[in-house]
């Protein structure tokens, strides 16, 4: 759909003034005069909006209105500007008034009034009015139009019409049974489909029919573009070919084409499988590694997106850790590549991160509101097939206690019932709260030095300081104010009373000896904060971390950050 060059401006009266309900305030300068159309489309950097463009925010009422063009004389409404102009001529206006005042046409971009929409952001504005209208209807409007043949619903009538034209008119069916609505996808699939390879192998004794005629089946709508009757599906032949070192398999030897593959075969990209032995790794490295960096390390190494099990060498499923996410150490195993093997329940993932971040609150928070966490990222990477399980994961991200408020506040007041799907997992707190908290972390006085947090961990003090710690260099001395172990690396003391205070009363499943670590975390507020969210727990990292009392305390005074409107445009 080419960008619509309809640059007719909006009826100023309607657009700038009317704001119904909880709409954002009127846009900046809405010029009363109308400009002529055909602004030349200036080419912008991709994705980068024109800095000089005028951003126009229209209200939903305006966008949905069908008669946007109103005659100022008699208040008659028209769908199109041209029609309005024609009408105005009938009023016998003096010449001057009849003409539109010409002014330099300024490029206009339009934002969506829906606050949570990505196009609410001026940098994601749409360039034409029709586009934003259609977008608004499609995304936030009610789907009033329904296709007769299939069940698809549409909010914009033209979409519905376009769909109805093609629905069920043409379908392409491959021998393997897959259906396609578009010819090019069908052709591409067909070329590589196993069914063709097999059939061709079998077709050698007799001449295959190269140009199959469409087979008229009982259902006249379906044109089956396939050759001779489909054969039972063979097992995928790919693995065989892969190992063939360039020799054509027997069936294809007489292929019309000549495959000349020089000298050596090209191996398929070797699948690098991480064979880390995790416990050993921990023993070796933890002492000198901050949890934060450790996690980075793990993150990067565990960063494979496991595919179907066949792609990964180990067929045997990794031993699933116990369902309680809290039991950590056991969860480590070297073969996390077979992450797909574990059940999709987030709590029983075999990823080490489940362990690392497993919250101690097992059941209670399993259905916690979707607070996105870094751990989710890691989990998602480990389990691309089960992303739905990420959000109800038992992994408790570091968060303030805003999880409770999260769901409702984002979508604000009523009237925004336009969600067409479940609300995406939103951050648990407003930007304000997040930043404030981060700021507090920076400002809070703590006992621990960043350096300690960075993992120069020794029971005595922050004496051991590796010189290659670039980050550490700047914060050699424990500082009271700006350095916070709380933020990154709050390392509360080992098991002791500090831990219990920090734990906010949640039963520690780990036993008293486990050090509790926050990833980027905040040893949680001692005292008052009614925290639903808990600091992540990193279990006894081989006992190597015997940290001095860095009671991380960014004590979040009274942390009653209510989840104010999370305006996620």
């Amino acid at each position, binding site marked *: 759909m080419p960008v619509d060059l309809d640059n007719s401006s909006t009826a100023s009266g309607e657009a700038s003034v009317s704001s119904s309900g909880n709409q954002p305030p009127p846009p900046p300068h809405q010029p009363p005069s109308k400009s002529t159309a055909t602004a030349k489309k200036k080419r912008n950097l991709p994705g980068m909006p024109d800095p000089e463009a005028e951003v126009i925010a229209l209200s939903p009422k305006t966008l949905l209105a069908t008669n946007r063009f109103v005659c100022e004389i008699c208040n008659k409404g028209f769908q199109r500007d041209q029609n309005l102009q024609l009408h105005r001529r009938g009023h016998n206006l003096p010449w001057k008034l009849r003409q539109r005042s010409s002014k330099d046409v300024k490029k206009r971009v339009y934002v969506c009034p829906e606050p949570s929409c990505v196009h609410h952001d001026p940098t994601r504005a749409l360039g034409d009015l029709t586009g934003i209208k259609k977008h608004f209807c499609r995304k936030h409007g009610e789907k009033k139009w329904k296709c007769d043949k299939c069940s698809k619903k549409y909010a914009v009538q033209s979409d519905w019409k376009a769909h109805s034209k093609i629905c069920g008119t043409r379908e392409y069916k491959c021998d393997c049974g897959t259906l396609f609505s578009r010819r090019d996808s069908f052709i591409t699939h067909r070329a590589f489909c196993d069914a063709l*390879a097999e059939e061709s192998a079998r077709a050698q004794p007799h001449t295959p029919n190269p140009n199959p005629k469409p087979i008229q089946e009982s259902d006249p709508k379906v044109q089956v573009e396939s050759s001779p009757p489909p054969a039972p599906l063979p097992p995928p032949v790919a693995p065989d070919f892969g190992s063939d070192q360039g020799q054509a398999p027997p069936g294809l030897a007489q292929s019309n084409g000549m495959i000349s593959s020089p000298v050596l075969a090209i191996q*398929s990209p070797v699948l690098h499988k991480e064979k880390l032995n995790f416990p050993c790794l921990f023993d070796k490295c933890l002492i000198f590694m901050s949890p934060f960096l450790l996690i980075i390390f793990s993150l990067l190494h565990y960063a494979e997106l496991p595919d179907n099990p066949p792609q990964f060498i180990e067929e045997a499923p990794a031993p699933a850790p116990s369902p309680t996410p809290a039991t950590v150490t056991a969860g480590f195993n070297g073969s996390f590549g077979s992450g797909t093997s574990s059940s999709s329940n987030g709590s029983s993932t075999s990823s080490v991160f489940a362990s690392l971040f497993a919250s101690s609150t097992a059941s209670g928070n399993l259905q916690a509101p979707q607070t996105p966490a870094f751990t989710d990222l890691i989990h998602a990477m480990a389990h691309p097939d089960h992303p739905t399980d990420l959000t109800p994961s038992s992994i408790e991200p570091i968060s303030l206690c805003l999880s409770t408020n999260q769901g409702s506040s984002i979508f604000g007041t009523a009237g925004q019932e336009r969600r067409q799907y479940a609300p995406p997992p939103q951050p648990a707190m407003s930007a304000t709260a997040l930043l404030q908290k981060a700021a507090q972390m920076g400002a809070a006085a703590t006992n621990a030095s960043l350096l300690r947090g960075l993992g120069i961990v020794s029971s005595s003090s922050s004496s051991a300081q590796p010189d*290659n710690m670039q980050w550490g260099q700047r914060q050699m001395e424990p500082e009271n104010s700006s350095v916070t172990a709380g933020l990154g690396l709050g390392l509360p003391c080992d098991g002791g009373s500090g831990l219990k205070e920090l734990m906010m009363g949640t039963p520690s499943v780990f036993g008293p000896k486990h050090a509790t670590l926050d990833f980027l975390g905040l040893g949680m507020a001692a005292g008052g904060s009614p925290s639903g969210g808990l600091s992540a727990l990193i279990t006894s990292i081989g006992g190597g971390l015997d940290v001095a009392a860095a009671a991380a305390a960014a004590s979040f005074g009274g942390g009653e950050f209510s989840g104010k409107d999370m*305006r996620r445009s």
Partner: protein
Amino acid sequence: MRTELRGNTTSISLQNPSLFNDPENSLSGELKGCLGSLDGACIEKLLLHCASALEHNDGTLAQQVMWVLNNVASLVGDPNQRLTSWFLRALISRASKVCPAAMDFDGSGTIRRRQMSVTELAVYVDLIPWHRFGFCASNSAILKAIEGYSKVHILDFSITHCMQWPTLIDALAKRPEGPPSLRITVPSCRPPVPPFLNVSCEEVGLRLSNFAKFKDVPFEFNVIDDPACFASPESIPQESSHEFHFESLMNHLTPSMLNLRDDEALVINCQNWLRYLSNIDQKGNVVQDSSSLRDAFLRTVKFLNPCILVVVDEDSDLSAPSLSSRITTCFNYLWIPFDALETFLPKDSSQRVEYESDIGHKIENIISFEGLQRIERLESGIEVAQRMKNAGFSSVPFCEDTIGEVRSLLEEHASGWGMKKEADHMLVLTWKGHNSVFATAWVPSDLQD
């Protein structure tokens, strides 16, 4: 874009308002403008702050920002959240290089080796018209250029493992004067970027041959014989081997090594390819002369005298030396495919997550690597066009048939996708008006009379 930030209509109560006046805390001070709204602009700022903190070795600030971003990010959230999680990951990867010794790992970077089967890849390239646009425009231009020839040789430089060719073979089969004989040659090595296939290129060639035979098109498939590509992957560090391979490849692009034949129409197809050829000199400055591999490649292929050279790539400049500029551009460009995926696929679609993860792979290379290891050096269409002209090519327009075909392709894909024509006869795929992918066709200048 300078607009007044529409004020928030809700009041924000701060627990400790004074904290925001804390001069020591640079984070809150600088991000005041984001109060109340974590929209794309704010996230972008956060990313930039994080990058800047890393560059200044400010661990505290970096962690603070990462903490905030962490709370925003979600792989299954809305496009902004998804993008954020990939960017955060890339920043962490970059951060990890800041103190590698403490991390005690081999620094080989993230290895993402999800491999697809050929049929899965066929679906992958059609999830959104991102690739199909280029395929369609290129194939149509190629068809036109080889009119009258009975033999065609295609040099295919791309990352999508020959997914482009079935439709061309199909079209050739239907040529009124009968199909030409077709030869496709691919390089043996390919940039180590997704999408990855679980079979060799020989296998792909086999299947194509099969298909061509099925369509009665005489067909031949060659893989350029380049011993360098068979060097064991372990012997050369992953990323620098890339450069090494390309230089070796260049040596094989001669008429004799390619076995060029006189009566053949030579077609060169560069799809998502040029960006992997280094465009910097030893010092790391972007150049457009003989010192860059990219230009050397263009001159080499010009010397082969193709009857058409099609170049398709993504339309954005992601190769700036400055990290913040890359972050900004990358963030503002890659929201496009994320948004498109959001429109067409449900949140929990694994295909979508995988597609996004491949984009994440790209993000990581752009953000967290420097020097030779940063292999993603995308230039905008305009810059590529200039480079082509410098190398001695002239652009040729796409004919009306082609444009019509692309248009109907986009119409089939439903709204949001558009197309526009730009300078140098460039066709550009747009999503909601934003440039995504460009397609151009060129001939050596001295061929044009």
